[in-house]
């Protein structure tokens, strides 16, 4: 079985991003970049399937600028067998990313595509569902449990009110949630070995996919700041202030 895992390079989760003062963009020129944390979880799942003898090949794919080679090298160190970068300097909408991924899924013909449920920069939470729709495949979003069956994969999903279990006919797209697993730490020998694994780079133009959309961000603003708060000394002072000052009790 072949598994395709998508990895996106995103601003590290510890960075507090601010808009540029003129509102034309966000101030991330020097921000620390990392693999989207949800994609690490997707990779970990793929590697666990391979270690259990349920998968033979893991292909990692990223769409982004040349910096995304970093996250693909990490993916190879995690245990992906080869990597593919679709290079572009433009910022793409999920619908455009899904066009590219559909082309790749058609060429690579994986049995399973594992993706993050959301990228922590744009929080769109769209790309996996869009890819599934384009391919006419089943989708299992927000997965916190996954097991492989005969021609199908069983997915436990986090939904409002609890969890739901679905059986998806393969090939399928699964988007993973935080509680699926705890990604491993990368070890130096694996990082060294990853340097020798194949990483292919293709441009969006070479791939021949139209990435234009009719949606654009015209302004980036800072949300309103909270007024400075007060330190209360006791429970009775807290209740008093909530009743008489804040008027919320």
């Amino acid at each position, binding site marked *: 079985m072949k598994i395709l895992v998508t990895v996106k390079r995103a601003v590290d989760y510890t960075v507090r991003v601010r808009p540029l003062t003129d509102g034309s963009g966000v101030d991330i020129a020097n921000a620390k970049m990392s693999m989207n944390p949800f994609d690490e979880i997707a990779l970990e799942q793929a590697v666990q399937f391979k270690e259990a003898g349920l998968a033979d090949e893991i292909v990692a794919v990223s769409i982004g600028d040349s910096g995304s080679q970093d996250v693909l090298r990490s993916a190879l160190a995690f245990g992906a067998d080869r990597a593919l970068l679709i290079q572009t300097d433009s910022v793409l909408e999920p619908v455009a990313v899904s066009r590219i991924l559909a082309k790749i899924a058609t060429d690579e013909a994986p049995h399973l595509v594992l993706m993050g449920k959301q990228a922590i920069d744009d929080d769109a939470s769209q790309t996996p569902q869009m890819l599934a729709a384009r391919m006419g495949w089943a989708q299992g979003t927000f997965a916190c449990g996954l097991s492989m069956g005969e021609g199908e994969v069983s997915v436990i999903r986090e939904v409002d009110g609890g969890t739901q279990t679905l059986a998806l006919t393969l090939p*399928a797209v699964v988007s993973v949630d935080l509680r699926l697993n705890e990604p491993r730490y990368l070890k130096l020998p694996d990082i060294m070995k990853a340097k020798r694994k194949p990483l292919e780079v293709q441009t969006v133009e070479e791939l021949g996919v139209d990435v234009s959309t009719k949606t654009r*961000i015209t302004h980036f603003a800072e949300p309103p700041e909270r007024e400075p708060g007060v330190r209360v000394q006791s*429970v009775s002072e807290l209740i008093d202030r909530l009743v008489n000052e804040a008027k919320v009790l």
Partner: protein
Amino acid sequence: MAVLVVADHSDGILSDGTARTITAALELDATVDVLVAGEQAQAVAEQAAALSGVTRVRCCDDAAYAHRLAEPMAALILSLMNEYAVVMAPGSAQGRDVLPRVAAVLDVAQLSEITRVIDSSTFERPIYAGNVLATVVSEEAIKVITVRITAFEPTAAAGSSAPIEAVAAAEAPDLARFVEESVVRSDRPELGSAKVVISGGRGVGSAEGFKLLEKIADELNAAIGASRAAVDAGYVPNDYQVGQSGKAVAPDLYIAVGISGAIQHWAGMKDSKVVVAINVDEECPMVQTADYALVADLFDVLPELEEGLAQLKAH
């Protein structure tokens, strides 16, 4: 312009989030139809028809939609999209699951979790864990939008009832099979619409510790939330999680107990009117940014708070 709002419901009850999504749809100066799909969906359709601003309810009563799986739901919505310029859904687990599938088939960009309608093609939505508000202009022929439900009030009940029209099920290949669900029904208000939310973090220490929060929630008719750390540790179920990757809340009062206030947690509760922090660490971001901070041990504070609130109620 005509908008189709896709209803969310469970156990025969229309969600509060659907009523809030209708409010967002009405801000587009549009006629608003509501699609209710499900098994024995008639009762839900009637609830939707009674909401103010609804022009028509389209009801698809069919076992194929019993669990509202993404593949058949998307096919059903797509079968109606030649009649609408916009399709909207609450940014709930269902809306987030289904709408991108619709957008992909229409080959249009989707707007996720809008917080404001500026005009019929301009919207605001939070990005980067809510640290940036983006103004987004969409010139797509058909707009596909999910709504951050805490940003809109629910539409009121109308004096009258909109017509309910049956729609046929749409053909869809059998790709996913429902196996089971484990859903906890709670008598408490929903996190997304509660006026008061009390949330616990790693500091609460155990499922047992959350009982202290429950007692206060009883006094305040509050919903209970949690940080990711508390959910990961198994103190409470997954759908209690508030934050960037959990639920967004915007109550009048948010009480954070034993929560340090990571960016990802703030992302889910920063629109709360008044934030109270109860924490032993005066340096942590929750204490630093809260409107009222009580630096003390939660195990001392919570019983006292419960008693104080009970007295308040007695007066």
